[in-house]
């Protein structure tokens, strides 16, 4: 009696695993977002999600053996951002970043630790989708605030230049890698020994 080969199709257990780990990940992201009320943390948010989120995410990757699971998790994060009022933009963005993350881990045959850490670097990029409206529509965004005087609008524009978005992406990626390494360390120290990895 060997373990049944279930092929590459996602079964009920995979879908439940996605739900459980996305829930854990989302709760952690929300807890971090609470610090976002202080403006400086708002900018650091995606990086913090990269680091702390790396812990459950690396554990999630030990459950990922079939294509699609990472993409679904990323898409759900995008949908949840939509529901919590972050516009529709995070949805397509998270689909794209999720797809890239999926392909990277697939490249490692869903088991290589190196691609797992790389995936942990790419995955949190979904959270940068929340910044998109701020950059893409900043002209409109601040247009009706001209009553404050052009000086203010200019200084705000200076605070959010377009290249800043790419800095955020890069910072999030680096923090994601750190989170992946942290997650890997905790996998070895806790989760594997506790028998849940």
């Amino acid at each position, binding site marked *: 009696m060997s373990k049944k080969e279930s092929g590459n199709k996602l079964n009920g257990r995979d879908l439940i695993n996605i739900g*459980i*780990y996305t*829930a854990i990940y989302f709760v952690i992201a929300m807890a971090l977002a609470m610090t976002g009320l202080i*403006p400086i943390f708002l900018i650091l948010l995606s990086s913090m999600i990269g680091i702390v989120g790396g812990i459950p995410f690396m554990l999630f990757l030990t459950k990922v053996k079939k294509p699609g699971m990472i993409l*679904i998790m990323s898409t759900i994060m995008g949908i949840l951002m*939509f529901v919590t*009022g972050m516009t529709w933009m995070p949805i397509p963005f998270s689909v794209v970043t999720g797809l890239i993350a999926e392909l990277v881990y697939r490249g490692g045959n869903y088991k290589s630790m190196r691609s797992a850490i790389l995936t942990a670097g790419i995955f949190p990029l979904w959270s940068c989708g929340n910044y998109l409206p701020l950059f893409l529509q900043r002209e409109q*965004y601040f247009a*009706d605030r001209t009553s404050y005087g052009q000086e203010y609008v200019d*200084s705000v524009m200076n605070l959010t230049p377009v290249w800043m978005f790419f800095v955020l992406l890069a910072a999030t990626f680096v923090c994601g890698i750190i989170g992946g390494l942290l997650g890997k360390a905790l996998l070895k120290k806790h989760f594997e020994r506790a028998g849940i990895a």
Partner: protein
Amino acid sequence: MSEETWTPSKKKSLLDPRTKLLLIFVEAVLVLATTGGERLFWFRIVFAVLPFLLLLSAKRYKICIIGLAVLCTIFLLEYTVFPYAHGLSASMLVLVITIINRFLPAYLTGVYVIRTTKVSEFKAAMEKLHMPDVLTIPMCVMFRFFPTIREENEAIRAAMKMRGIRFGGGKVGKMLEYRIVPMITCAAKIGEELSAAALTRGLGKYKKRTNICHIGFGWADIVIFLLVAATVLYWILGVFA
């Protein structure tokens, strides 16, 4: 023996889940992205007030009051502090004021939707919208799992409190490890058991499931539709004007 058929409760929330999704979308587009500019000003006001009315209808007074308080604080900041601010602090202030002003109605709508939608209603809506199971099932699991995570988190916090503050030596790294790792471990264990219980009851056996929960549009949905349609029409007329 006479057969007794169970009658599911007729209690439903005011709006159909699909209308709620539409509403979130409209809030996001309209209130957030300033589409339509000044012309739609009054419509924007209506859609900014709407989430408060919906929260009131669902008897969520607390979140309503918090929302109002935040709004008042922002207005106060805008009209008292802001005129005296200069340079970077002023820019920061503008950023905070605009972000909160824009995001608040959409966020409150989100709160309303999450608090008033039952999992079975959500499942029914996803099926009606032809969303695939690979999205519906994980999201149902999430709704089920959030309260569990909260329970686990509270129990772990209580255990840490009982053991005293000395515990962890106040180091951030250790605190993180002792809080997050047990939370994930406990949640993952419960998740395994949940998975086993769901599979033994046939989850994922057939593509087409039955759903005993019915959703449908009511008068409130029609009011929202008319409002949205009027807004879109007015906006389009404006574009071609």
